[in-house]
């Protein structure tokens, strides 16, 4: 068992609209979608055509460079539409659900499994995309042996989920998923848990338990890897989200691809914030029908948390990985003299030029206003305050902007992914789009270094 990790630099932003611990079933979703953009660094090649009928668990597209990595349909039905964007880029593959067949795979006896057979099963069944790889947060490469696999149940982002609640009915499948993943690594997988968690995770076997304490971004796997056993040049580490461990466990029990997704619907605009049981790629309306939202105002629908999530239309679909769906009011309004210090203290601020720290007991109301305009880098030292890794964030951002690969490498680009800069996006005075800069930096690294 590893020692615990204690994070000091960072911030927990307490927002209104935290999900209550009630689990409901989603209302039926007519269509489901797969979005290649959910898989960073993946160029898709379609394996189906519009109008084709497919079974649940049948491949829809694969990674262009590696046809072994397939992405399968979460439901059976008709490929209704392949929505494309600029330069014919595939945005969404929309599947209209019917009560068709379900693909079943033969799983050998658990005792006869080894790394190769587990890899083959995960690839063949379409469960491989549940595994992401560092550096960069891309699809895992089936040919590498990772240094370790991380599963983080410590969720620290604003309004984030409680994994102990979310997984409570799936203990056996979670354990099975862990046992399966342990075939892929030499050392046991790392399971990060909240230091205050009781029972559940302590009884999981075959893991290296890592207790975490501290504010966001302590729940980010990058931070945990960095503090526990930092990533070195040419090393790979894998990451699996807790519910996907359950999905992998179910696959190995039943032989069928499992696309279960429990989503916490949260945010100030949500009328009854709660957990909803649904399927990967389901329609947003199928979960908002249950939770409701304030439709008297304009809202921002976010797949994920308010710092790192992706905006989605209200008639859109869930993303592949997220357990959190946030709805907050849009902020397209003016604030007179709002730039004066100590004005509008209801807006949460990490800066001491606001008295907002006095106002947060009941949780903050937030909207999507920029609260200013983008400026050049001026203020120094503020990014370090919310960035707990031993990396100079501003210098790394500047290296990314300059496209200086050698410098990016030396300053630690391998150890971060864009989401680690979510709090910097939020907190920096000059409104620099840090996540965007890091994303472009990583894309450049992938292109030039591989």
């Amino acid at each position, binding site marked *: 068992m590893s020692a615990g990790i204690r994070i000091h630099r960072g911030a927990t932003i307490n927002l209104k609209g935290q999900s209550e611990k009630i689990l409901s079933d989603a209302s039926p979703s007519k269509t489901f979608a797969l979005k290649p953009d959910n898989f960073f660094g993946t160029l898709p090649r379609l394996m189906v055509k519009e109008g084709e009928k497919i079974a649940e668990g049948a491949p829809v597209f694969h990674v262009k460079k590696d046809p072994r990595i397939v992405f399968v349909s979460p439901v059976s039905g008709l490929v209704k539409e392949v929505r494309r964007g600029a330069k014919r880029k595939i945005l969404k593959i929309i599947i209209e659900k019917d009560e068709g067949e379900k693909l079943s795979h033969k799983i050998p006896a658990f005792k006869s499994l080894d790394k190769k057979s587990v890899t083959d099963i995960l690839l063949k069944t379409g469960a491989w995309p549940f595994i992401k790889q560092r550096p960069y947060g891309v699809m895992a490469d089936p040919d590498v042996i990772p240094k370790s696999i991380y599963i983080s149940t410590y969720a620290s982002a604003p309004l984030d989920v409680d994994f102990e609640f979310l997984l409570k009915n799936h203990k056996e499948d979670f354990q099975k998923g862990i046992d399966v993943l342990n075939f892929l690594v030499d050392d046991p997988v790392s399971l990060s848990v909240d230091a205050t968690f009781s029972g559940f995770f302590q009884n999981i076997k075959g893991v290296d338990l890592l207790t975490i304490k501290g504010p966001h971004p302590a729940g980010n796997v990058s931070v945990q890897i960095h503090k526990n056993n930092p990533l070195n040049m040419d*090393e790979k580490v894998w990451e699996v989200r807790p519910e996907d461990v359950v999905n992998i466990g179910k696959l190995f029990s039943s032989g069928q691809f499992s696309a279960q997704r429990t989503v916490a619907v949260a945010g100030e605009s949500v009328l009854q914030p709660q957990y909803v049981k649904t399927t990967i790629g389901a329609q947003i309306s199928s979960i908002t029908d249950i939770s409701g939202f304030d439709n008297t105002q304009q809202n921002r629908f976010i797949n994920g948390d308010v*710092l790192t999530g992706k905006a989605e239309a209200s008639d859109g679909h869930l993303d592949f990985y997220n357990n959190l769906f946030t709805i907050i009011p849009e902020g397209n309004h003016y604030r007179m003299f709002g730039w004066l210090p100590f004005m509008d203290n209801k*807006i949460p601020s990490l800066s001491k030029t606001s008295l907002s720290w006095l106002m947060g007991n009941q949780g903050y109301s937030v909207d999507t206003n920029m609260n200013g305009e983008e400026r050049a880098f*001026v*203020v120094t*030292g*503020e990014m370090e305050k919310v960035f707990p890794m*031993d990396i100079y964030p501003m210098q790394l951002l500047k290296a990314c902007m300059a496209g200086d690969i050698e410098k990016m490498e030396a300053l630690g680009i391998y150890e971060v992914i864009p989401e680690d800069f979510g709090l910097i996006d*939020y907190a920096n005075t000059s409104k620099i789009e840090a*996540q965007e800069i890091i994303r472009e930096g990583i894309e450049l690294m992938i292109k030039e270094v591989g």
Partner: protein
Amino acid sequence: MSFLRRKLDELKRPFAKGQKWEKYAPAINAFDTFLFVPNHTTHTGAHIRDAVDLKRTMVTVIIALMPALIYGIYNTGYQYYTQTGEAFTFLDAFIHGSWKIVPMIIVSYVVGLTIEFIFAVYRGHEVNEGYLVTGLLIPMIMPVDIPLWMVAISVAFAVLIAKEAFGGTGMNILNPALTARAFAFFAYPTYMSGNKVWVSEASTIDGVSGETILGTLAAGGNVNYSFFEMFQGSIPGSIAETSALFVVIGALILIATGVGSWRIMIGSVLGAAFVGFLFNLWGANALMSFSWVNHLVVGGFAFGVVFMATDPVSAAQTNKGKWVYGILVGVFCILIRVFNPAYPEGVMLAILLMNVFAPTIDHYVVQGNISKRKKRWANALKTT
């Protein structure tokens, strides 16, 4: 509010994309965003943003400058009336000071902001708020009787050469306000030093004169001010730098709001105190035996350290680097004061010197982080 908003939107229409005055949009936007925080919403990255922005940060600095500025205005009148021997009230002193100083502030803002607006329109970016602070700092660190046209030329030099030539706010190497003062200092030395420039009207009225304490010491004279007078600031000097007391109040505002770096401020004080103390021990001449405590309260040291050395753009940017940078500003300030009688005050040149070396300091701090990482990589390769 909604009436004002409607009027503004109407006014802004010809500046919109594709309209005839599109090019000049940054100019009207600067006025608009001064009244209202705009309705822009997030589109990439985090969906929510902190309430702080650059305007708020800069305005906090201006608020922190106010105590020193108000005292400086009063002290200008105080120095004048005590020299002429006229009876005066606080208000008289304040009015005399305002009559001298307000025009300097106006000239500084008009000239500086005009250049900033021209560059914003030319480069097609929004007007940055940095000049709001610079424009106030420049008159505050000038001698009171400097002609307005010299203020204008110094401002133009600072904004054009020290700032815009490097790419504008955030890109400059040297602190623009100090560059303006250094320019005036070397271009018009007779207006920037001696015993006829520090007190209002000293150059025109015969009986009126006054030398700064450091100037007196450098010339080998005796200082007749008590520590309290030096600390409180009722001494001749540049307009707003004389009162360590009111500068400290400003420093507390900057530190409490997190806008100014306490590392740089404390580092500078430690550096200056240490070197001052060493010279006290040596004590070869009057300047060397000038108490290290007095060094901290006379001249522009306090003002420079609190408001100029902490300029985040021209200072060191890493936390470790800020300590090194701050300490060296203090050390060099006292070294220049003691060893170079041609420059009685050393803080301006000390800060400008350290501005030049700040990137080097940061380079070594960041390099330390890089070497640590590379060593870790090498160790990992060895064990596998």
